[in-house]
């Protein structure tokens, strides 16, 4: 009688080939996930301490972020499924045991495919995050260079001097205007004075607002530029860890391939105890049949 797991020998080969292919075929997955991060011009205007949160939130709401969450959720389900399969294997023997081992191998193969997809998406996200922070840093440095430009510096000094000079002469000019016969304060001057106190109060509130505080790294206040460099370093470290995880994935895939190979050999050569009876049966001897001929 043909045993069910024997018919799956070809399928085991397919699992083996699938695992091998999954190691090298990054292009097998469709490029459906996208994330277009906020422009660096927008990000540079945001409070530095919230920069990474804005980027992270933007990423989570993107198709790429949602896809990554889905893949992550699926992997979690697959892992618990594999754990229960492994427990079941320990409790069973014989044909049932082989069937479950085969199922576990398939589950492992699917899990590794999922992990590879997750790593691909994570790498894509990290590349984009890195690009965003590099652009923000470039904008900050460009602004700094522009501010240090001698022509700009001289112009800003002149503008500040002009403002100071005007502030000193405002009272005098207002007096002269008030003494003119048909003089009435203009709408601009009236409303500007009314708004001025409120503007100052708002400025003070902004300066003391928690969102406007300097970003903090390891308990130390840092500049916007330093903070962006810190975020960039974090992205690079995540990328390095991902490289390490990719190595782990390679090893895991190799183990699955070895397991599949072992199971295939067991099935093909019949090394199981149940099937061993038939395989090790004594060959029929002619001397035993000779008695039939003597009578």
């Amino acid at each position, binding site marked *: 009688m043909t045993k069910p797991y024997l018919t799956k020998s070809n399928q085991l080969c397919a699992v083996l080939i699938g695992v091998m292919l999954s190691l090298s075929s990054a292009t097998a997955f469709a490029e459906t996930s996208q994330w277009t991060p906020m422009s660096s011009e927008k990000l540079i205007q945001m409070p530095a301490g919230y920069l990474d949160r804005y980027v992270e939130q933007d990423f989570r709401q993107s198709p790429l972020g949602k896809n990554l969450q889905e893949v992550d959720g699926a992997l979690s389900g697959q892992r618990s499924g594999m754990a229960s399969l492994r427990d079941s294997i320990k409790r069973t023997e014989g044909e049932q045991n082989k069937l479950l081992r085969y199922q576990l191998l398939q589950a492992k193969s699917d899990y590794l495919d999922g992990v590879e997809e997750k790593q691909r998406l994570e790498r894509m996200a990290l590349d984009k995050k890195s690009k965003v922070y590099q652009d923000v840093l470039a904008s900050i440095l460009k602004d700094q260079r522009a501010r240090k430009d001698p022509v700009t510096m001289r112009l800003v000094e002149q503008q500040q001097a002009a403002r100071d000079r*005007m502030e000193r002469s405002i009272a005098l*000019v207002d007096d002269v205007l008030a003494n003119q016969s*048909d003089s009435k304060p*203009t709408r*601009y001057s009236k409303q500007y004075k009314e708004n001025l106190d409120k503007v100052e109060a708002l400025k003070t509130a902004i300066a003391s607002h928690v969102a406007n505080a300097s970003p903090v790294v390891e308990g130390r206040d840092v500049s916007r530029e330093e903070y962006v460099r810190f975020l960039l370093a974090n992205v690079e470290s995540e990328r390095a860890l991902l490289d390490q995880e990719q190595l782990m994935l390679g090893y895991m895939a190799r183990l699955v391939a070895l397991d599949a190979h072992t199971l295939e050999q067991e099935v093909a050569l019949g090394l199981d105890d149940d099937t061993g009876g038939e395989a090790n049966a004594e060959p029929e001897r002619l001397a035993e049949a000779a008695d039939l001929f003597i009578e």
Partner: protein
Amino acid sequence: MHKVFVLILFLIPAAWSQADDLRSLENLERERARLIQTALDPHLDNVKRQQRLQHQARTMVDLERMVLRDDRLIGVKDPMVVRAFKHYDLTFMSHAAVEARLNIVDFWLQAQGLTTERVRAASVGFR
């Protein structure tokens, strides 16, 4: 020729995008030109000229304060901005005239080097 055309195509949007940022200064320059035009208009009698100048000077005070308080102009290296802040007395005439205790038109003429003595000392002739 083709390169020049492409360069112009790139420069036109840049010029447009900057135009909005300089609006306060452009308004001031326009009113300043109108004030000088009024001061030099030979068709106006003295009373009318004084009335108009007084009204325009008042507008100039507001416009000058708007420009000086306009943060959008800070550090903008446009030639118009650079020139405006390089010559405070000519750009912010109404404030500078009050500081100098002069009528705004007298102050402008003085800034141009046109004093009564120099006008009287001038002689008619070909340059």
